[in-house]
């Protein structure tokens, strides 16, 4: 019988710990598939965040390091500087990279650190029970914005990829979504390109991905996808925000 689907070698048999309908799992699979397709699994060291995806260390079949909340890019810098020939990537929630870890997000980009960062934007702090994140959109109800995010008090949400794109050392910046098969396919291409950029040593590459958190949004998996499309997509610019000439020539 013809095998039409098999799990990527990039993932171990450790079961995902995510809630039903959470799209962290899809993003894991995309990264793992890219690493397998590019034959990078043995060459790669991943760096984990602290957040719902903090346990992905066990789920990927490449080496993985986990440190403090928000520090993944600093840890990754240390790994890359010690082993420039290895592929090094961070996987981080929006709280991890766009709140507590923002200084590192700016400076790895400024330095053109030859690593890849994947940001998973679900507009909340998922792990700690759905508090407001810098990415929470105006009016969105969370446990720490129970009357809806008041942008006059909390400011409007940060679109981190746009900020990162202004820095010269960031040579590839893209924002995708995994809400539909089409967007999943497109996001995978972005991830692949980001790793190709790193392989060629062109500079810092960054992919931000819109993701759902049905549990903390209080919605069903399907309604979550609709909520993401209706509320997050107008706020967060999608597509390739930046690709230098060298990147386009890849």
């Amino acid at each position, binding site marked *: 019988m013809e095998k039409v689907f098999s799990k990527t070698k990039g993932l171990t048999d450790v079961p995902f710990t995510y809630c039903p309908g959470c799209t962290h799992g899809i993003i894991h699979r995309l990264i793992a598939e890219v690493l397998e397709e590019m034959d990078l699994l043995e060459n790669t*060291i991943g760096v984990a965040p602290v957040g719902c995806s903090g*346990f992905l260390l066990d789920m990927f079949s490449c080496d993985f390091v*986990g*440190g403090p909340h928000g520090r993944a890019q600093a840890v990754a810098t240390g790994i890359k500087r*010690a082993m420039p020939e290895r592929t090094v990537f961070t996987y981080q929630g929006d709280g991890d990279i766009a709140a507590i870890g923002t200084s590192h997000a700016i*400076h790895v980009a400024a330095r053109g650190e030859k690593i890849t960062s994947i940001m998973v934007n679900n507009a909340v702090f998922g792990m700690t029970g759905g508090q407001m994140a810098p990415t929470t959109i105006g009016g969105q109800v969370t446990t720490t914005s129970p009357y809806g995010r008041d942008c006059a008090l909390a400011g409007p949400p940060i679109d981190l990829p746009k900020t990162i794109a202004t820095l010269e050392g960031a040579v590839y910046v893209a924002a995708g979504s995994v809400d539909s098969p089409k967007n999943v396919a497109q996001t995978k291409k972005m991830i692949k390109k980001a790793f190709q950029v790193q392989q060629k040593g062109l500079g810092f590459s960054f992919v931000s991905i819109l993701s759902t958190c049905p549990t903390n949004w209080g919605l069903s998996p399907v309604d979550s996808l609709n909520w993401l499309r209706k509320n997050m997509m107008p706020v967060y610019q999608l597509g390739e925000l930046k690709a230098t000439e060298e990147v386009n020539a890849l």
Partner: protein
Amino acid sequence: MRRQLLKGNEAIAEAAIRSGCKLFFGYPITPSTEIIEYLSRNLPKAGGAVLQGEDEIASINMCYGAAATGARVMTASSSPGYSLKQEGMSYLAAAELPVVVVNINRNGPGLGGLGPSQGDYFQCTKGGGHGDYRTIVLAPSKGQEMYDYTMKAFDLADKYRTPVVILADGMLGQTMEPIEFKERPSVELPEKDWVTTGCIGRPKRKISMYNLTNEAGEEISLKLQAKFNKMKDLEQQWENYCTDDAEYLLVGYGTCGRVGKSAVQLARQQGIKLGLIRPITLWPFPEKAFISLPKIKGILTVELNAGQMVEDVKLAVKCSIPVQSHTRVGGMLLSENSVLKKLAEVFQLEVRV
């Protein structure tokens, strides 16, 4: 052997290069800055690299990443910067990563001042970061020891898979002394069979520390504690100075160890049988130095803080000997005369100063 006049900070930097340190991550702060400056000039020539991080938090986490690959790595700072590294210290201890961390202690709290201080004794020896962990702390008292203990720190870090702190004050960091460029001692160290370097030809590895159940948490914690106990058992170090016939003892480390030696000489000129115990490891505190001191009538601790190590000395002698404390704070130095005066005052001795 080559000898050169170097600042204490530069001696640390040179020893790091000669210990095979390949990477240095740091953020400038007085009075530690000569370390990153010296290494920026000289580590690249030795095939290594220096990266100035965006802050101390970044720097210690860069060390975390580099150490995870097995590279010898160091960071250095001074009190306010060392405070920022405390989260990192806790994670390094938990993930069992060898990193050498230098703290050139300046006056605090807050921004404080640049003068020499030992105000970070508690922070360095009692944890500093969160959780139940310990770090080895080495306290040099002169330029050559800045060099020698740095070499030792790298070996201890690798031996125990642990962060090791070098704690010195700004006076030691800034003073120029002749330094002998000794070769790295040959020490047998465990193979680094835990590093995350990419899983070519071996099963995948991970480095991190968290526990999803309390039972696992207990198991991991007990394993760590067993390691800390082993360090406590095997690594206590101190220097005895004129202690054999001593009736009174000074206890001081770093700069105070040095001042203490002068005070001992002065006292002995006047017929007072004074000796000195100079702790070299501040953690583990050299309790063994205090096990049997039948002739000692009194102990005076000497510190550049409001009295911190004195607590460990009291614990070590278990109330069997009176312990008094002589201190100076705020970035000021104390003199051997002031030590003698205090000794005379608290133990009712006749001295001329």
